């Protein structure tokens, strides 16, 4: 089995990461009741023992290894200590090794240049060292997950500078990024600059990006909590739940579902490398809109169960997307459908794909662009769970919004001096990022025009002489 390393950068990244590790531990504890350290757990955790303050990894012997002390395969980076300290003092503190933490106390002042150029250079060696160590402890490393937000300074700047370290040191290992984009009413004034600069790096250096929007998460959480409150019996809210916890749980659920097939058994396994292969037809168009159905925040807080076919329908409605977008009315380049559940079989998948294909538009050269996966074990508290990862042209609307907000600020060169005064930053970067994003928006537009207007011409088949 393969292993993955989680790298959480910045306040947002670490908070989401915290929820992820919590849910992940719960899931493995549920499915591995006899406490054996097996392939499934080893994908995200190491089994360790501590002798005189040094932690050693216990090798996995076939079948009979008991769990001793689990350590997460993670690297936590933040230029402010608040979030990480809170994490360490909580219940999850045990699973992190102090060496896996890279912190500072000054923060990045919501400035991408400070995060990327200043801290990027300062901490490059230290981060590279930690990544190398973590990779060495993996038998077969398949991918890195980077969690961050694009609107701030640390997550956005240092997070993207980290990508170039990963690309240089481990070019063969896939780089998946969960990037939280700011909503239009974000209170950080420079967030359009930060997001634009970050997106440029993500386009060039990530293999696959899952963009997420806070507003979409808020909408989903409200929907679920309303349904729970209006239900026949009151379900208790989790103890010590913080306001962002519910939203972050959703993101954690997406990652758990995405990796379920590489951790657990199923009749149609989908590894993370297959996701990149099937959903990224052109290197720069690797932005995947994710959606979950049925909606659940944790095992106690979820919408009431629905019929399977209805869940498939819901998966493609705009209320279930983790990005403010409506993929149904745009063009699909490819779509992955990952299903978890004991009683879902290939016939259910096929029946629903046939139904959905009638109402969704796929690009002319990929009319059957579906990638399907079936995993036997559902998430805790659910009978089944569906995840869709869509490479869809609706993302261009989000990018266009971002571009507009950026141009509004940049045309007056507002706040630009904060960036230019940082060593290593060149104002040319603003223009390059703008060009790159405009290019991507244009490519998506072109594809939409050609297919939806019906002017696509199929090339003549190879003629034999």
């Amino acid at each position: 089995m393969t292993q993955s390393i989680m790298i959480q950068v910045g306040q947002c990244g670490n908070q989401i990461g915290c929820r992820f590790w919590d849910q992940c531990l719960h899931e493995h504890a549920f499915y591995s009741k006899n406490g054996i350290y097996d392939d499934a757990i080893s994908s995200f955790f190491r089994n360790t023992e501590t002798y005189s303050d040094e932690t050693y990894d216990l090798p996995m012997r076939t079948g009979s290894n008991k769990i001793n002390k689990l350590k997460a395969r993670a690297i936590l980076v933040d230029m402010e200590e608040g979030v990480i300290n809170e994490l360490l003092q909580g219940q999850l503190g045990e699973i992190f090794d102090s060496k896996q933490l890279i912190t500072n106390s000054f923060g990045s002042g919501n400035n991408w240049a400070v995060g990327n150029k200043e801290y990027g250079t300062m901490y490059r060696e230290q981060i590279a060292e930690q990544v190398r160590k973590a990779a060495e402890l993996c038998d077969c490393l398949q991918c890195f997950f980077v969690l961050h937000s694009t609107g701030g300074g640390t997550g956005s700047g240092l997070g993207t500078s980290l990508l170039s370290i990963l690309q240089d040191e481990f070019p063969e290992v896939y780089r998946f990024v969960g990037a939280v984009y700011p909503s239009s009413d974000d209170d950080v004034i420079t967030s359009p600059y930060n997001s634009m600069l970050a997106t440029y790096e993500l386009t060039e250096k990530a293999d696959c990006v899952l963009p997420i929007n806070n507003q979409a998460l808020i909408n989903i959480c409200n929907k679920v909590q309303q349904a729970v409150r209006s239900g026949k019996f009151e379900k208790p809210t989790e103890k010590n739940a913080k306001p962002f916890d519910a939203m972050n749980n959703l993101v954690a659920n997406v990652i758990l579902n995405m990796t379920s097939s590489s951790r657990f058994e199923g009749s149609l396994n989908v590894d993370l490398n297959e996701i990149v292969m099937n959903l990224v037809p052109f290197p720069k168009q690797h932005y995947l809109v994710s959606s979950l159905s049925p909606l659940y925040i944790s095992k106690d807080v979820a919408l009431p169960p629905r019929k399977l076919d209805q869940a498939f329908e819901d998966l493609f409605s705009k209320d279930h997307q983790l990005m403010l977008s409506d993929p149904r009315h745009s063009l699909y380049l490819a779509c992955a459908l990952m299903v978890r559940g004991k009683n879902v079989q290939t016939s259910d998948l096929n029946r629903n794909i046939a139904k959905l294909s009638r109402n969704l538009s796929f690009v002319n050269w990929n009319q059957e662009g579906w990638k399907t996966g079936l995993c036997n074990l559902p998430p805790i508290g659910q009978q089944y769970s569906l995840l869709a990862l869509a490479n869809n042209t609706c993302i261009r609307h989000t990018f266009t919004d971002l571009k507009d907000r950026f141009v509004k600020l940049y045309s007056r060169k507002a706040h630009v001096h904060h960036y230019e005064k940082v060593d290593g930053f060149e104002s040319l970067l603003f223009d390059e990022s703008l060009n790159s994003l405009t290019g991507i928006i244009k490519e998506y537009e072109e594809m939409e025009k050609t297919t939806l207007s019906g002017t696509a011409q199929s090339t003549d088949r190879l003629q034999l002489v």
Partner: protein
Amino acid sequence: MKTFFNDTQCGKHEARSVMIDMEPKAVNWAVQDTTGKEWRYAKSQQFVQKSGSGNNWSYGFKVHAPKCKDAIIDLIRKEIEKCDYFGGFLLLMSLAGGTGSGLGAFVGNVLRDNFPRATVLNPVVCPYTSGEVAVQNYNAVLSLSHIIAVSDAVCLLHNNQLHEICHRLLGIKQVSFHDMNKVAAHQLASVLLPIIQDKQSGSRFQNVLNDIASALVCNSRYKMLDLKCVPYMSPHTMAFNTFQWEGLAKRMFQMMLTDHHMDEGLNWRTTLTRPHGKTQRSSTYTKYVSSLLFMRGQGSTSYDLLTQFGDSRLYPTWIMPACRNSVWKTELPFRGYEKCIAFLSNGTSCVKSLNVLTEEAWDMFGSKAYLHHYYKYGLEESDFINAFATVENVIYSYKTL
């Protein structure tokens, strides 16, 4: 028994197989599935890696394959050594993925290079046309172009057809891959289980693969085989059915004419009759290069199918009458079916599916989608063009029959 199994000292039968996969889950599951059964897989005959091929044909063929080549040849040789009389290989793989299709194509080349005189029969699984893997058509075209060159015969099994058989004939409401695999295994077993046909020759060792290849593949331009079986029944309806050779033969003949994979939903209007001496247009019924019928069950030896299935209108004129069609019979019933017929043919059945896959793959190739994933590991544009040309050639040969 000895054709496919080896006897071990502990009394269990060991399958004569080599299991190869670039990631462990499927093989582990298969091995565990044999617990409690009379047979098992030999412990040392599994070759498993950890990372998978990511549905990337190029990764399977160019990266994994050269690394695993020696280990795989070793395992194959070990298995051959256990045989008294080695007949040939059955290379089972799918066309849609990365390992089965990419590494599988490589293994086909390896078999041909290292064991030039062995017969290689290649059953391959074609994915659902509604899409299981976005790049399935690329992977299929690339694989087919290789295995067509090196295998003696390629037999296409279609997920769509297997699914329908499970759903409509076996009455399974929620069809799973397990159900479909059982049907595929049933189909393969119905033609591969040995039939001792000639008692006079006294030979108890029948080289099944060689016999099939020599009966069906007389010209290396025509190697694509198709499998049809009749009947399929769910266990509870079997008890209520009476089997008659005439009924089975009639349904199988219509399936043969209309190239339909089940005996349900048949178009009975298609016939061979020539109105007023003029020939029926060949596009209305399927044409064959050669075919093999397997009759398993009581009374098979006394029932004649040769005249019906060997009709000259179904075959091209350059095939000698004796080579058109053979019927192999055994009185032994098969898997609880009192009587059953299997039809293994070399004919235009493959054209439809090959056409669909090539068309979709070519469209995708035209827009250059996904190609960077393949080029990353050493494949080039010319490799794709060659692959397309090979498959188009096969389609053309069959279309002009």
